[in-house]
């Protein structure tokens, strides 16, 4: 097994680098590089055994923490676990010096270039950069012109992909200047790997990441424009939403940084300022960490088809009273062809030599470069000059047939400016755990830079990506590449004490009334669907006992009415001559049909949809329930899944025991209470006042009918306890309406509704909120002042009582929507004039 070159005590017999590539671990002479030898030394006598165990732990942690993957490929997809290799990428102190110096310079350079591009355009005038690269560039956003003139920073954060060439030098493969991703995943990787290899991590002296994030946060606060009354500036994290592939890390990062996670619809502009729509009204936003691509940020002045943006954002940016991190427009310089000009630009703009080289690039818009590319087509990588929809895809010259290569050459000759050629870097390799052993894999490392205090800081860590099959093309995570944590080694690192997450919960904007309207709306509907689904599940469970009950045979009208109610709540009905068994079958078939409106399956689907929307605001316990609910919904017969009711009860219990009592919580409970009130009225109305075909006054309900109502409203047990089994209409109605002690009764719901309404913010609508509260009080007094004996004696009074309660409920629902869910007005493009 062991190659003769290796020493006897080599901890990695069998690990050999790939020919012609630089390996991070083993030097060409067969010895281990010192930092790898030290790391392997921490793994104990049998590194393979340690790593095997760690890989298992790591994989479990990924699944337990539900890393990202549920949302990573969109809300509906069956998610793969986040691909994380437990073996870290090690970066030696001397390598880090080179990298961080180079990246800081690069960030300064790009910041200056972007400020100039969206300002005086000196470097276009001086011809250091061919004008075409800006003027024909679809990512140069002309409405943003002028944003570079403002004082301050254009490029707040920035990411690069970097690789190592066979001679050991680092080369930048691409720059990400607009809304780079990966920072959140890096952090998540670090937390998992650090806890998996905790002993090794401590023994290795690895640079910590928390300071970088603290600085990043402080820097945004410092740059944000001053707020009124000495308030803490409100900074939000703008995401394209749950459908985005990297939504997980948006949620993760927002939480870590302590910024509210918002979508475009949560924000609005007026008078050149940006506001967050909250249940407490509009709250001014001082800073936006932006993960929506620039072009999609403002349907008024940029891509008018975008539903992710905020109308007026560009104009607000021009006003300078909101900090955008990053400022709009950075994608213009992300083009691969820029790499061909970075060296001269650095000379001319910063007056320095470019420290960290870019992979050799030739832009075909220049004659000499085009000739070179055409002459070397078979060895180069050919890329579109500008990344955009419908652009040509990246082609590897070496992989093309002669005919394909000729066709490509013809295209380049026809539209030279649209292409650039790049040298194919033989990427260096690093050990990865694969099939029970460490094997060398070619890697690309993503590093992150952020502005702080007049300079840039490089995060001492990063995100390494590699193809687990050992292939070498730069693969995307979408296409199955895997990731690693990056450990930057430093002798001084261990001195710094570990720090908690930087989010400080005590800051001003965590106040309850800043709950975004959209979140409040979603939580309200979470409450409503939760109640509706639980109710449907419970009623379905009651079918069998109902049909088996001996009185059902004696009083078949009650059984029939009960089944009719179940059908009605599924928005369905049956033929007049259908047998009870046929009706029961129809109910069960429809219950499992998610396409059938009002069915259990349809309500469950809605519940899952809303839970997906709000899950990032809920603790992980909810996520587990959500996973189980998804599994139930995927079954052929969801209504037969015995733990459905239990899962729903778990959500309820978690809601009471785990969630903070903030405004959002009140909306969740309001949804629940309002829905339960509706259900009680619906059931009582249908059972006690069944429509008579002859239009007769409804008869006095029989004892069995009353008992069934108690059963359906889940009040039978409590009623029996309190009334010792006397089924009298007056006392049953009293228990369901006026009794404050019955948690399934109307008065109980009304009092809770009034309490929750009283806890909602008031200043948002000084007239409408008191009206809402008055409605809630009427609901309470309606049930409190009712005379159950009179109701029992007079069906018409009963009817009036039900309809008045229903009317107040509708009023409350409408007012809640109008006052607090104002985000619902989404802008639409008008036809141009």
């Amino acid at each position, binding site marked *: 097994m062991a190659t003769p070159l290796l020493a006897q005590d080599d901890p990695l017999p069998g690990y050999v680098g790939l020919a012609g590539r630089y390996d991070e671990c083993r030097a060409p002479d067969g010895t281990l590089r010192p930092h790898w030898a030290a790391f392997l030394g921490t793994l104990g006598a049998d590194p393979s055994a340690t790593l095997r165990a760690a890989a298992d732990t790591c994989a479990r942690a990924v699944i337990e923490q539900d890393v990202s993957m549920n949302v990573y490929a969109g809300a509906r997809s069956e998610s793969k676990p986040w691909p994380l290799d437990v073996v870290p990428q090690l970066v030696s102190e001397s390598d880090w010096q080179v990298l961080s110096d180079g990246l800081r310079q690069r960030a300064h350079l790009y910041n200056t270039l972007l400020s100039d591009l969206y300002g005086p*355009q000196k470097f*276009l*005038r001086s*011809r250091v950069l061919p*004008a*075409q690269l800006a*003027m*024909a560039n679809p990512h140069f956003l*002309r*409405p943003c*012109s*002028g944003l570079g003139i403002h004082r301050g920073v254009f490029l707040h954060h920035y990411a690069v992909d970097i690789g190592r060439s066979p001679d050991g030098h680092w080369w930048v493969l691409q720059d990400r200047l607009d809304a780079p991703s990966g920072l959140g995943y890096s952090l998540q990787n670090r937390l998992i790997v650090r806890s998996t290899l905790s002993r090794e991590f401590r023994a290795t002296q690895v640079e910590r990441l928390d300071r970088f994030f603290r600085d990043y946060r402080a820097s945004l606060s410092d740059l944000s424009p001053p707020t009124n009354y000495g308030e803490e500036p409100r900074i939000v994290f703008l995401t394209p939403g749950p459908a985005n592939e990297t939504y997980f890390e948006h949620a993760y990062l927002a939480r870590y940084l302590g910024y509210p996670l918002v979508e475009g619809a949560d924000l*609005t*502009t*007026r*008078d*050149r300022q940006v506001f967050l729509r909250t249940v407490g009204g509009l709250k001014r936003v001082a800073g936006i960490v932006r993960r929506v691509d620039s072009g999609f940020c403002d*349907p*008024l*002045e940029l891509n*008018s088809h975008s539903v992710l943006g905020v*109308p*007026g954002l560009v*104009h607000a940016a*021009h006003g300078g009273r909101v900090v955008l991190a990053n400022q709009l427009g950075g994608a213009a310089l992300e083009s691969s062809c820029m790499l061909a000009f970075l060296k001269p630009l650095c000379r001319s703009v910063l007056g320095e030599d470019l420290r960290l080289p870019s992979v050799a690039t030739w832009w075909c818009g220049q004659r000499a470069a085009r000739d070179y590319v055409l002459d070397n087509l078979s060895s180069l990588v050919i890329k579109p000059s500008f990344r955009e929809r419908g652009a040509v895809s990246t082609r590897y010259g070496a992989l093309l047939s002669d005919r394909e290569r000729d066709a490509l050459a013809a295209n380049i000759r026809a539209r030279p*400016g649209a292409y650039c050629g790049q040298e194919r870097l033989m990427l260096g390799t690093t050990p990865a755990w694969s099939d029970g052993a460490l094997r060398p894999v070619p890697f690309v490392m993503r590093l992150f830079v952020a502005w702080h205090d007049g300079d840039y800081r490089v995060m001492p860590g990063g995100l390494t990506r590699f193809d687990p099959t050992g292939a070498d093309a730069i693969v995307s995570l979408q296409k199955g590449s895997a990731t690693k944590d990056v450990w930057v080694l430093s002798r001084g690192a261990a001195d710094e004490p570990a720090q908690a997450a930087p989010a400080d919960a005590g800051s001003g904007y965590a106040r309850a009334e800043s709950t975004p309207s959209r979140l409040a709306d979603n939580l309200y509907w979470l409450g409503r669907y939760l109640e509706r689904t639980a109710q449907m599940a419970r009623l379905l469970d009651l079918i069998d006992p109902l049909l088996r009950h001996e009185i059902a045979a004696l009083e078949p009208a009650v059984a029939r009415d009960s089944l009719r109610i179940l059908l009605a709540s599924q928005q369905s009905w049956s033929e007049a001559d259908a047998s009870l068994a046929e009706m029961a079958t129809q109910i069960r078939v429809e219950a499992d049909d998610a396409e059938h409106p009002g069915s259990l399956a349809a309500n469950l689907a809605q519940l899952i949809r809303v839970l997906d929307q709000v899950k990032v605001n809920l603790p992980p316990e909810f996520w587990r329930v959500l996973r189980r609910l998804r599994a139930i919904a995927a079954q052929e017969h969801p209504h037969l899944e015995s733990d459905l009711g239990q899962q729903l009860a778990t959500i309820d219990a978690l809601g009471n025991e785990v969630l903070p009592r903030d405004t959002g919580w009140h909306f969740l409970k309001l949804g629940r209470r309002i829905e339960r009130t509706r259900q009680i009225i619906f059931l009582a109305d249908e059972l006690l006042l069944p429509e008579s075909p002859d239009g007769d006054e409804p008869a006095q309900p029989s004892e069995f009918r009353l008992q069934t109502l108690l059963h359906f409203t889940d009040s039978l047990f409590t009623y029996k306890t309190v009334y010792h089994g006397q089924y009298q209409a007056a006392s049953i109605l009293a228990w369901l309406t006026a009794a404050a002690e019955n948690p399934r009764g109307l008065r109980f719901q009304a009092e809770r509704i009034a309490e929750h309404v009283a806890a909602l913010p008031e200043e948002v609508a000084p007239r409408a909120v008191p009206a809402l509260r008055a409605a809630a009080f009427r609901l309470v007094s309606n049930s409190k002042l009712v005379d159950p004996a009179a109701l029992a004696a007079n069906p018409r009074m009963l009817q009036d009582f039900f309809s008045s309660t229903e009317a107040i409920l509708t009023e409350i629902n409408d007012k809640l929507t109008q006052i607090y869910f104002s985000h619902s*007005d*989404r*802008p*639409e*493009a*008008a*036809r*141009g*004039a």
Partner: protein
Amino acid sequence: MARYSVTHTTRYAHLAFASASWQSLHLQPRNEAVQHCESFELQVAPHPPDLASRFDYFGNKQHLFTLREPHKELVITSRSIVRRDEPSLPMAGLTPAMEDVPALVERAAVEDDFSLEQYLHASPLVPLIPEAVALLGELSGDLPPGTSVMDWLATTGERFNRSFTFDPEATQISTPLGEVIARRRGVCQDFAHLLISCLRQRRIPAAYVSGYILTQAPAGKERMLGADASHAWVSAFVPGTGWVDYDPTNRCFVGSGHIVVARGRDFFDVSPVKGLFSGGGGQTLETGVTVEERD
């Protein structure tokens, strides 16, 4: 010299109340060598609290506002008084031959004005489609070598005009250029976009101009097409001379009777009124332009 008063009204009517609106306007006539905007007044009803303006990348004045009160109707009226001189056209014989243009343009873009470059490439509403090249072959393929740019423009423009029918019903803003060519119908905007695509593919920098022409023709003259709404035409860069405006809808070089509002790469850059509404349940749009000559 001529003086004009221009009134441009845009009226959105909604079926239901719109709760908010965001608008971006390009309505203020430019100041240029032969044109001076003496006064400009913008009226918006309901009155927006935050009307603001800035110069855009092309040097046009852009106004923006947000409306935050429920409204069923939004009326934007601009009134300008514009003084305009007859631009002097270069003598055709003194302009370079067509075949020399690409090299001269390239040099001008490098040495004089890098921004020429943006008028040579596709822009949001002007794709560089092969159909436009074919159309150009059809229109000007027979012109002899050595034809000067100005003669080439005049002839091509004239033939372009004759092979298309002005038809306000035929197209919308979203109608692709290929379809305009296939149907040989359209409005001033389509003709401008199409001619721009042709010119850019011949390496002549070409820009889009939005503006107005006289509503009522002077006595004894025919009324021009495109007079009762915003008009649009093309500006072509002639090396050695500069930008020359040509109106393919009325097959003429632009004189003192055209009023320039804004210049850009295409309609996307300079649309007179562009906006978003929230709520309102759909809307109808009416525009009216009146241009009168003053003493």
